């Protein structure tokens, strides 16, 4: 049986990768995918703890997180589409009308 912290560390790694993705990419959709990655990492953590504690709670939490992710995805992608309508790109660096 695999010790819990293996999973924790794995999820930490994945989370970090997601964060780096968010910080380093310009393509909005890629950024969003990285965020999804982060969320999944969190899921992994939850599940690991859930098994550790023998609690169904964590599992439920993951379930809800999935729902949240789905919702975010829906809206987010819609936003990207609108963005694309406006300026034919989803490069977030282009979105700089407002600053200072």
């Amino acid at each position, binding site marked *: *049986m*695999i*010790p*819990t*912290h*293996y*999973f*924790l*560390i*794995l999820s*930490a*790694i*994945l*989370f*970090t*990768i997601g964060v*780096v*993705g968010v*910080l*380093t*990419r*310009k*393509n909005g*959709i*890629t950024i969003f*995918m*990285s965020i*999804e*990655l982060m969320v*999944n990492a969190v*899921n*992994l953590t939850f*599940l690991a703890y*859930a*098994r*550790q*504690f*023998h609690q*169904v*709670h964590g*599992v*439920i939490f*993951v*379930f*809800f997180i*999935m*729902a949240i992710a*789905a*919702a*975010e*995805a*829906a*809206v987010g*992608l*819609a936003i*990207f*589409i*609108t963005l694309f309508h406006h300026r034919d790109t989803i*490069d977030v*660096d282009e979105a700089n009308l407002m600053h200072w």
Partner: protein
Amino acid sequence: MEFAIFFFFAAVAVIFSLVVVLHRNPVVGALSLVAAFFALAVMYVLLEAPFLAALQVIVYAGAIMVLFLFVIMLLNLQHMTEPVTRPLQQFLGYTAGGAFGLGLIYYLLKYGVFEKLPDGPFHASARVIGKAMFEAYVFPFEMVSILLLAAIVGALFMSGRSYKREAAR
């Protein structure tokens, strides 16, 4: 055996997520993300949550990622490649990310280790989950519907048909 599976799929997950972050083409990114999600699903199985594993495959790898791909295709971004810009941003992103990850791992190893594993198997089966969902978690469960409704309405509105007409005005 278990360990082998774990490490293999852990490697898969990490590698593919790295591809997501590093590869310049969004389509590739999306697909490799799907792969990563599969790997995660395996992890879930290892964590004795088969139902969630299934969900992971269906919802994430299935629905959400398909949505992503769909959008990418719709806006036909598949050929879009992004040149590396903003070196400072990049540099800080990597270094800070690295520091964060290392710190996190360090703390997890130092304080996050559980000496004893839980005795006996733990089955977060569909039944268990479903029961909990409709007993203890009925309220959030209902609220999720509002969440999703809002999301749908929002998505419809944002990318809605009437957009062009409005724009015309």
